[in-house]
């Protein structure tokens, strides 16, 4: 066991897989010599050399296109998109090429690639460097999407993503890079498509992702002091989605809340709310409520950013008020 930061866990997960499979290569802007602008690939160049750990020009389309072509022809690339906002620059490669080509060719090509990206807000970087884009990826058939919230999950899910033969969007949360967690020694391999109940409870189900998970947990602790026992589920994987864990929880508690960093419209929680309204309607003891950032670009000033992003306090207040009405 060791205390490992989330950012070091990223490097550890990638290194673990690069050691066991020489087809795994890493490519992106400033990821080799500098170890990544967020220091998530420190040590990889030293251990694996410049042929396998490659610094690129600022060319997101070229980077992802190269990852796709290499994945189609025998390699298992991990490509980085530095800030997830930059997906917009190369979205064609992601959704029109990577997501669809296997289907259009009736399975002739396989694309075992991972796109890792620095996602999410809370760091005062402003609207063009703070978005949470997992819902963009969730909307496209053919992409798997994971967002770990702990260092241990980072290692395990990165390994699972690299070993998976399909394209995986690996959303690292920028706000969690410094957070430390206990990580067991040795090889760790997790399973895509599985959610984790972080805190069991009876009175309400709270779903959260990424940096919203610790906030939901803090809210649950606060609610417990006022007699509300909330169950917090770390969704972890949007595609594939662990609907069984979610529906089982709602069947027990009867109340569902989602905590989403996306702006309001079409966040991942909207899809789950729809699913629950369809398949667990008769389990619901009250309306499904989504706690999200409002439908605005994220402001840069710290006071404003904190105001508009969901907080432990706003989550607890919302749940308590809902259960009392």
């Amino acid at each position: 066991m060791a205390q490992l930061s989330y950012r070091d866990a990223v490097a550890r997960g990638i290194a673990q897989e690069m050691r066991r499979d020489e087809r795994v290569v890493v490519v992106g802007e400033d990821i080799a010599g500098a170890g990544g602008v967020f220091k998530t690939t420190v040590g990889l160049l030293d251990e694996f050399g410049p042929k396998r750990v490659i610094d690129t020009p600022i060319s997101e389309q070229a980077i992802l296109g190269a990852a796709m072509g290499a994945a189609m022809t025998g390699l298992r690339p991990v490509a980085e998109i530095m800030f997830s906002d930059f997906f917009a620059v190369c979205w064609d490669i992601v959704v029109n090429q990577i997501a669809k080509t296997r289907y259009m060719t009736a399975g002739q090509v396989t694309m075992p690639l991972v796109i890792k990206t620095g996602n999410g807000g809370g760091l005062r970087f402003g609207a063009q460097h703070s978005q949470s884009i997992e819902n963009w990826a969730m909307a496209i058939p053919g992409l798997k999407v994971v967002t770990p919230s702990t260092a241990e999950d980072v290692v395990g899910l990165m390994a699972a993503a690299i070993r998976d033969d399909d394209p995986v969007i690996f959303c690292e949360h920028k706000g969690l890079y410094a957070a430390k967690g206990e990580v067991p020694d040795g090889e760790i391999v997790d399973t895509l498509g599985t959610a984790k109940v972080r805190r069991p409870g009876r009175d309400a189900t709270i779903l959260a992702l990424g940096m919203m998970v610790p906030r939901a947990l803090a809210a649950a602790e606060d609610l417990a002091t006022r007699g509300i026992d909330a169950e917090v589920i770390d969704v972890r994987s949007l595609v594939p989605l662990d609907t069984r864990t979610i529906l089982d929880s709602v069947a027990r508690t009867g109340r569902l809340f989602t905590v989403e960093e996306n702006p309001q419209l079409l966040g991942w929680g909207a899809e789950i709310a729809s699913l629950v309204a369809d398949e667990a309607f008769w389990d619901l003891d009250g309306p499904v409520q989504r706690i999200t950032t409002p439908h605005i670009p994220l402001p840069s000033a710290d006071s404003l950013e904190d105001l508009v992003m969901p907080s432990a306090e706003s989550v607890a207040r919302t749940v308590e008020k809902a259960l009392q009405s």
Partner: protein
Amino acid sequence: MSVPPSLAPFLPGGRPAPRASGGHRPRQVHSPRVRRLAHDRGVHLGGLTGTGPRGRVTTDDVDRAASMAESLPLATPVAAPGTVRARHTAVTEVEVTRLTTSPDLLAWLVESSVRTVRSVRAATAEVVPTTVSVHGPPGGAPRTVVNAHDLGVQGIERVLGAADTPLNGSEGRASRPELSVHDLRGTGVLFDVPVLEDGVVVAISFGDVVDRPTVVELPDGGRGIGIGSFVHLALTVDEHLAGASAARLLARVRQRLEAHESGSSS
């Protein structure tokens, strides 16, 4: 940072302002979970006082009501074996305004009776498949509904309407009917005292459906006069064999019908 109240609806967890009511203010609202629980346990929601916020009926309220109904003491002591059999009849009236078209009232009544008999039997004895003999409308031959507990109200209506529903005694696989339902509509009679034929433990009869004035809730929340359809139910039971009193059984049948009538069953 102090936030003006006008912003609160838009911040995380904020809710939009309730729309100005253009007309309809809903009656007491029951959540889907409460409605499902009430349906499953045969509880009539309309009669319940809720202990939840703003008088809402909670799942605990439903559980409590169901347990109370199930633990009602027998109205009459059960006669010891060998003594004169205790056959009693009880009569009540129930509103069936929404139960007279499709499916037909007969099907609703068969379903409610079957569920009641089974729930009582389940509490006191081994549960046996429920076979029902259905008499009426007058002039027709009696019909048998086999495994009635497996059918919903639509299934029961289908079986009753099917040309090949077996006549009494001709269905080899059926157990002998324990329950008989007598449809006296069209005879001009409100109810009669149903008789327990061979092997039947519970018999229910109902007569003409009568439309008459009744108290209704208005859209603005007040009360007024409207028209409702009402029917009398009479239930005769061998209290020793059934392990329950006529009053108790009839109350549960009525409860179930009222749940269907108010739409709190799914």
